[in-house]
């Protein structure tokens, strides 16, 4: 078995132009005694049309990586790119526009505005931008998530799984270059979770969507094309065509070697 440190991270995704990439991305929280290096000079690229899962133990920096890549958090050092855009050069307004137009988000919970119907939630990013949604695409997305009969319901009238599917549809509806999902199935039972994951998988296969998903669930990770493993702010391993068993096996390695 290869040692964690032997994996050359530079090898990751170099052939096709990536949808997003980072260059020596570093994020430090706090100062002095409370100084914590959450990301330690991470180089990573997410190829277009690929479904990537980021895994790692708690505190490994996987959420921070996603936040920095998605323009939700500022980096301490290094660079994050969405397509050709370098994020640290953008001001708050430009970042907002970038998130609105090029990125889709799916959070663990509280994804929806309780005052809006499912349909209104789905078209919200376009409404904010003052754009008309592409009706044909919208229909495709809605049919893919299978929510047509519930479009006029409010979130409180939907099950947790349905709510997450609405969140997925919202992330897709704007045809973003990349979707970031933060534990999208963390709050769901296994059946609903499987529905959501199947939908994400299909959107990559059939619509060529790029998705980056942070998860700690090996089952969720097995839906991805590729799994990146983070530990202590560094990418320590990569796995292509993952299965639940292999991911589980790899994760156990973290438990056995609680190293630095």
């Amino acid at each position, binding site marked *: 078995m290869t040692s964690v440190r032997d994996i050359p991270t530079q090898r990751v995704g170099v052939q096709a132009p990536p949808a997003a990439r980072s260059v020596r991305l570093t994020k430090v929280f706090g100062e002095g005694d409370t100084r914590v290096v959450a990301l330690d000079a991470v180089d990573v690229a997410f190829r277009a049309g690929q479904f990537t899962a980021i895994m790692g133990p708690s505190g490994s920096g996987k959420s921070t990586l996603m*936040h920095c890549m998605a323009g*939700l*958090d500022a980096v301490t050092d290094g660079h994050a790119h969405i397509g050709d855009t370098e994020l640290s050069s953008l001001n*708050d*307004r430009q970042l*907002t*526009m970038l*998130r*609105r*137009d090029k990125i889709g*988000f799916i*959070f663990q*919970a*509280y*994804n929806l*505005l*309780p*005052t*809006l119907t499912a349909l*209104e939630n789905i078209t*919200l*990013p376009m*409404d*904010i*931008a*003052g754009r008309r949604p592409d009706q044909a695409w919208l229909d495709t997305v809605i049919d893919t998530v299978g929510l047509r009969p519930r479009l006029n319901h409010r979130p*409180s009238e939907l099950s947790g799984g349905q709510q997450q599917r609405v969140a997925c549809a*919202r992330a897709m509806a704007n045809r973003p270059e990349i979707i970031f999902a933060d534990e999208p199935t963390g*709050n769901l039972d296994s059946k609903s979770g499987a529905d959501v994951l199947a939908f994400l998988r299909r959107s990559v296969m059939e619509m060529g969507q790029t998705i980056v998903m942070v998860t700690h669930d090996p089952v969720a990770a097995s839906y991805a094309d590729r799994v990146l493993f983070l530990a202590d702010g560094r990418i320590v391993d990569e796995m292509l065509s993952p299965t639940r068993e292999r991911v589980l096996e790899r994760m156990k390695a973290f438990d056995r070697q609680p190293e630095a």
Partner: protein
Amino acid sequence: MWHATLRNLLAHKLRLALSGLAIVLGVAFVSGTMIFTDTLGKTFENLFASTSADVNVEPASAFDSGLAGTGEGTGAASTVPESLVDTVRDVDGVAAAAGFVRTEGVYVLDGNGNVLDTGGAPGIGISWEPDPDLSSSTLVDGRAPRGAAQVALDVDSAEKAGYTLGDTVTVLTTGPRVQAELVGTFSFGDSGGSAGASLAAFETRAAQELFGTPGQFSGIGISTADGIAEETVRDRVAAAIGDGYDVRTASEQAEALAGDFEEGLAFVETFLLAFAGIALFVGTFIILNTFSMLVAQRTRELALLRALGAGRAQVTRSVLAEALVLGIVGSTLGLAAGFGVATGLRSLFGQFGLTLDGGLVFATDTVLWSYAVGVLVTLMAAYLPARRAAKTPPVAAMRDDHVSVERSLRRRTVFGGVLTAAGVAAMVGAFIVQDDGTAASLVGVGALTLLLGTIALSPVIARPFLRGIGAVLPRLFGTSGHLARENAVRNPRRTAATASALMVGLALVSGFSIIGASTNASVDNSLDQSLGADYVVSTAVAAPFSAEIAQEIRVIDGVESVTQQRFGQAQLGGVQTSVSAVDAATLDSAFALDYLTGGTEGLRGEGLLVDEDTAASRGWSVGDRVEALLANGERVELTVGGVYTTNQALGLAVISLDTFTAAGGEALDRFVYVDVAPDVDAAAVRSSLKATLDAYPVVTLKDQAQFADEQKGQVDQLLMIINALLGLSVIIAVLGIVNTLALSVIERTREIGLLRAIGMDRRQLRQMIRLESVAISVYGAVFGLILGIVFGTGLVQALADQGISQQVIPGGRMLLFLAIGALIGVLAAVWPARRAAGLKLLDAIATT
């Protein structure tokens, strides 16, 4: 984790501060009002009740005027003869006795020849009493005045007019105009405050000549010999001088004057306390609102406590304990802020000439009430949410999402519906009922019930209303408009409670402006209908002035007739009535009178004219004989000689000037009406009138339109004071909206983070919160205006027979109020919107 904990704590601190603010504001208004009223009371008490003589003798009055302290006497000019002083002095136990003169209508002119502004308080002339045992004035600077060429002024007036010792001061008396050297300044009473009144003191002899009656005094002050009870001296003096005089000890005198004074001040106090009540009412809403939100936001925390084994009562107690602490802290701060409010009120009243010089009075009552009100209201406001909190199932702690269960509005609907219906019924009743008193109280009861009913119903109406007017928001402002509308309706109770504060304030402001506009229109109308004269000569506040003025006008070329009008109180057939005294010869030229029966001739001799309402209510008709008791105790039998239709300028009843004078009525005019001959140069007559009156700055010459403007000016001034006070409740309402919005922002932190994450920029976010705020405030404003219009028109209708005959709804002003309502929404949103826009995105998303 510590990060989130700290944030939570910080947020709690802010929440706590916001609910504390509501208490501080409510209590500040209550304590401020009480402090101000006490200060006002002390000043007036000084002015009217300060007397250091042990025993006082005054001419007996037949009855109380009921108007003491307002500068309006009974119209009696009774005096005590000088010889009586010797009689009193001879009484065993009297150490010293001296007659004094005290008359209203004595004004001080400033260096520019203008009357010193007393803000409606009287200009008083007094005799200088050198014996400190008998005097209530204390020299501050200079010396006592001697002879008619020397005068002493109260310190404030001297300062206001810019006089220093040695200056020549012009004093307008009820008699001649006097120029005298200022030789001294003095303070009056204990604190030296005079409530704006000016006091001019002359040596006793000079005072009698200048503005009294030679050989006569207004009263006698007595100091008792050591070791003899005041009561004993009082009884002996009373026995010595016989009937016709009131003899009172110092404490009796103070009590008698205090009784009068309290009646006079009761209006101001009631008025201010009504505003404090409104402020508290409004404040209660804010506190209630805040606590409901605080508890709702802490559902998980409280559920955790329950899960850990805390009983319901314990949870209730813990919330109540928090409220208690908050109430005590808030009340203390509010009490302190009350000083600020009182200072503000003092300078507000100062703007209108009512200067209060003494320090602010801080009574124990104020402290007790402030705490009682602040703590009790907070506990009351916290009780319902606390009970609700106790009912939180422990499992709520485990849920990610605390779904605030929407409670049914059915009970609200029924309760509010019943109240509203009752209110409407009372209002309708007020329109039907004939009797003014009943109508007015029906309007009062109706207004209150209607207000409470609307407040109760308000959450029920909020949703359809906001959806209705909110329909334009998405069209105009896109997504932020859409979200703003949805946010405004998502918790109708909260929206309604927030809007209620503004609703109450605007209902009162608009109601009063309708009454004001209607009164002004009625003044125009009634003066048109009741005055026949070309010019009116009067002071701005219908204060008495020298009869010499009428004499001088009478000799001007081109003046056809001059009519003097005096006022007094009389008991007609046993009922106290205000009466006008006018000369029958010129009555018709001054007033536009419309007789139902009888005529002006009926006034001659011992005649009496009454208006139709008085005639109807007393059952009098022409030829009836009415027993009249005049203020000085004289009984006359008057014959009803005519019944006229309601006349604003004349009032309820008219007696002839001869009857009035014979009965000892004061020889001072309140109004003089001038008619110009038809075939002369009107402009020339006007300028000679003006030239003549230049010597009397107390009075002004007005044609009918100017006279009407002057009357309306007083209504406007009163309205300004009312609106300034109501402005305070509107400020509280604004803070209430700020409070609710800020708490909403905290509550929706995560949602805001989500919106930012998916691409809403800060500008849109601010706009969303601003629009929500405007929607809420417009909701409050619209219903406030509707209620205000109902109250205003109802009250005007009820007062129709009191002279407010015109019903006017000032449309422009109503629209202005609506615009102000919207503006309040914009202003209230500034801080919460900025706060929302400033939230750190990641922290916001991470918030649970």
